[in-house]
């Protein structure tokens, strides 16, 4: 096993009775990496995290943490700290005793416990709260204490199980930045489960997008956003979601994508695989709303078209516009100060090089 990897998972299999949740799961996480497991509920991301923590019994495979095979080890012996969605603070203990519970169980000396609790509470700025009970804390403070409980254990790997999902939007944004700062300061490995793509994009070094117990794509946020490997990933990442147009790709000197009255030259598009000369049916062209050009910019684009505005959703900084292309609802994002109305005729366009194309099997081409 390589020393460069903080965590290695080989051929992991998890099943509840006959229902297989994870199978043939292989994953290597580098030292100091911030990995986000992202997916809709039921995709197996929390299951995977619980397996790494040792809180779930596995059927097959092995788990290595810091080059040590911990497959059969108890959670406390794996060198991990974990933060839960519901905070899971011990309600009848003070914050201080919550923080020190793990250390006291491990038989750490008293002055060392004091030192580590003081250090963690200084990092998380929860010193004034040490003598309070969890019930006397706000949601954000509780989650900070929960993070502190992982922090005092002085471990190599932090596991986060949707830690911000119970917080309101503003606190979530604040704590998100704090977690990022914490990672930059501690530089240890963090695995973070979430269904929130903003959290995933902002925090991760790499994102693993999961679906049905399988990792669809494991890559940097940049690549996942710009070069999604399949239609599911393309649709999952990005808000508002990517526009999908179904049509036919005709090969030639310049490949052309056609759908109804649309005809888009795809000469600039970087194909990710060599295709034959045959015409491909059932191809999907995906364009992100924010990559759609508008007005004068659109006129110079490789592809442009006049459309009628159907619905306008102003959001302040920008405005989301819905328009019909043939019988397809198409959304695009424009600058927030533009005053558009329903029924306006506008010119939109896009650069096919920024789009994504998927074949009939929904794989990127």
């Amino acid at each position, binding site marked *: 096993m390589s020393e460069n990897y903080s965590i290695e998972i080989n051929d992991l299999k998890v099943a509840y009775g006959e229902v297989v949740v994870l199978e043939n799961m292989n994953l290597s996480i580098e030292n100091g990496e911030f990995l986000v497991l992202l997916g809709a509920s039921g995709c197996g991301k929390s299951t995977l995290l619980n397996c790494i923590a040792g*809180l779930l019994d596995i059927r097959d495979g092995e788990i290595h943490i810091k080059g040590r095979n911990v497959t059969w080890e108890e*959670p406390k012996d794996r060198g991990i*700290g974990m933060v*839960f969605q519901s905070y899971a603070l011990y309600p009848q203990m003070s914050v201080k005793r919550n923080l020190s*519970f*793990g250390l006291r*169980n491990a038989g750490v000396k008293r002055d060392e416990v004091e030192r580590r609790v003081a250090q963690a509470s200084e990092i998380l700025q929860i010193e004034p709260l040490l003598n309070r009970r969890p019930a006397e804390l706000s949601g954000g403070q509780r989650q900070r204490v929960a993070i502190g409980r992982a922090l005092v254990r002085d471990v190599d790997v932090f596991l986060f199980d949707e830690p911000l999902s119970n917080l309101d939007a503003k606190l979530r944004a604040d704590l998100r930045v704090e977690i990022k700062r914490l990672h930059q300061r501690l530089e240890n490995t963090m695995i973070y489960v979430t269904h929130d793509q903003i959290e995933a994009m902002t925090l991760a070094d790499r994102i693993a997008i999961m679906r049905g117990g399988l990792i669809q794509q494991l890559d940097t946020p940049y690549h996942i956003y710009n070069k999604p490997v399949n239609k599911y990933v393309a649709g999952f990442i990005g808000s508002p979601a990517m526009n999908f147009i179904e049509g036919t790709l005709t090969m030639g000197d310049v490949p052309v994508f056609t759908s109804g009255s649309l005809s888009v030259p795809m000469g600039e598009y970087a194909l990710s695989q060599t295709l034959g000369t045959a015409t491909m049916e059932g191809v999907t062209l995906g364009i992100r709303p924010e990559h759609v050009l508008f007005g004068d910019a659109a006129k110079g684009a490789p592809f442009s078209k006049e459309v009628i505005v159907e619905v306008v959703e102003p959001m302040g900084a920008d405005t989301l516009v819905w328009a019909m292309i043939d019988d397809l609802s198409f959304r695009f994002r424009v600058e927030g100060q533009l005053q558009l109305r329903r029924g306006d005729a506008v010119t939109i366009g896009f650069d096919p090089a920024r789009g994504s194309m998927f074949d009939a099997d929904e794989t990127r081409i």
Partner: protein
Amino acid sequence: MTKAIVTPRGAKPNRIGPSRIILYSILVVAAVYYLLPLYVMVATSLKDLDQVREGNIFAWPLRAGFDAWIKAWDTACTGLYCEGLKVGFWKSVQITVPSVLVSIAIASINGYALSYWRFRGSEVFFTILIIGSFIPYQVMLYPLVIITRELGIFGTLPGVIFIHSIFGMPILTLLFRNYFAALPVELFKAARVDGAGFWGIFFQIMLPMSIPILVVAIILQVTGIWNDFLFGVIFAGTQNWPMTVQLNNIVNSTQGVKEHNVNMAATILTGLVPLTIYFISGRYFVRGIAAGAVKG
């Protein structure tokens, strides 16, 4: 001046309609129905024997006094001995306290293990335990007599405590299991990551959170065991008969005059312990029963 038209504004006025009146009438009747026998008991126990003989059970006690109560406690005859209920009271305490403690201790650990430390066959084990709570006690009496005899504890205090502890198990385990199942499982996970073991999690995390259900279990067991007659009369042995058995002997004695005032006083005295418990903890009782019943 014309009458001002009232338009709806502000707090909605409270009107007492016919449905309210019917509702309260039914409640009053129900209250009287349950309170009347209690009044008869207390009134009769305060009367002297002369007034009891007049036969008007609803009459107010004319020469009220606690003579009947003192007699019931101190000198009433239970069969051969005339030492009153006080002997039975202390025997009941000696039976109830250990039985309550032992049964709750075992059942809380059972419930904790069954909801968090699932093992192969734990569901089957739980099902068997629950079926146990539906079987009538009487069916098992004779085998239990033989079992306790073989164990050498038949007719002793440990014998009757053993029986009470066993029969408290199914319902209490169900109660605790459901209570623990309603607690967030992440607490248990967090404690495991923090390195607490089976007993560490139980004593440091779970037990301190179980006060409401502990109160319910104590109420259930104290009242149940205190009011028990059958196990007491069979398993405790004649020298250890609890208060309920002695009460029966006082009330059903066939010799001498029927002292209704003493019988009533003895009955109230015996029922006083569970009554007190209900009065003190009725609020917890309802709350805890609800808490324990959330999940099946």
